């Protein structure tokens, strides 16, 4: 089946991203496809390239990126939720006159419409929050 995941919890403050990631790997090992992961609400922090957890803890950004590289899972981040929370791409940084950015490929800043489209396209949308 085609699955989509909606992740709305921040790493370290909420177990939702960890649960989502474990679930994603279980999906793949059961032979399912993951069309995309949509990061919304505090979940946008999963995409932060500045995240630097202690070495004995999982870097969730890296773990999501790996899911993209090895299994082609699309990683979409809600732009409105991200900007408000300080998660910004290079082009958005330019537009807002900021000197730095903290989100880059394979994560993509996109509109909420992408979430609704994902929900239409997949057989199952599972929320982790």
């Amino acid at each position, binding site marked *: 089946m085609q699955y989509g995941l909606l992740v709305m919890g921040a790493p370290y403050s909420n177990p939702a991203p960890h649960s989502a990631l474990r679930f994603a790997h279980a999906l793949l090992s059961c032979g399912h496809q993951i069309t995309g992961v949509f990061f919304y609400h505090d979940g946008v922090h999963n995409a932060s390239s500045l995240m630097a957890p202690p070495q004995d803890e999982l870097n969730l950004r890296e773990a999501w990126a790996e899911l993209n590289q090895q299994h082609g899972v699309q990683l979409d981040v809600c732009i409105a939720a991200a900007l408000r929370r300080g998660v910004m791409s290079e082009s958005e940084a330019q537009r807002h006159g900021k000197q730095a950015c903290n989100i880059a490929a394979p994560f993509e800043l996109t509109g909420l*419409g992408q979430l*609704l489209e994902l929900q239409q396209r997949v057989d199952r949308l599972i929320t982790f929050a």
Partner: protein
Amino acid sequence: MASPDALLVVIRHAPHGSNWLREGLDAALVAAAFGQPVHLLFMGQGIMALMKEQGSGAPGQKATLPTIDMLEMYDIDTLWVAEGALQSMNLSADSLIEGVTLIADQEVPELLSQHAKILNF
């Protein structure tokens, strides 16, 4: 009222306490803008979003009522409220804005099953 292709957005969080309410309403508005029929169900503290006398928050904290007022412009005119939730919060329907549809608690499972798509905020 419910149609199988409609999106049900469930709102369970009050204004100001978090961004769940705001971001839930945003999802409803975007879905409606994309032409999807959208219905809203308010449960628990989410009912506070419908308080007719609510103001804006602390300086810089947006009020919710203007967004609620926008729903109609986007053809979102179904705002369900479970009666039990109202009662358990000691609220009367008079405290809420107009245009709200009260439903019995027992109808909630049926509502969920009638919608193919649900987003829970």
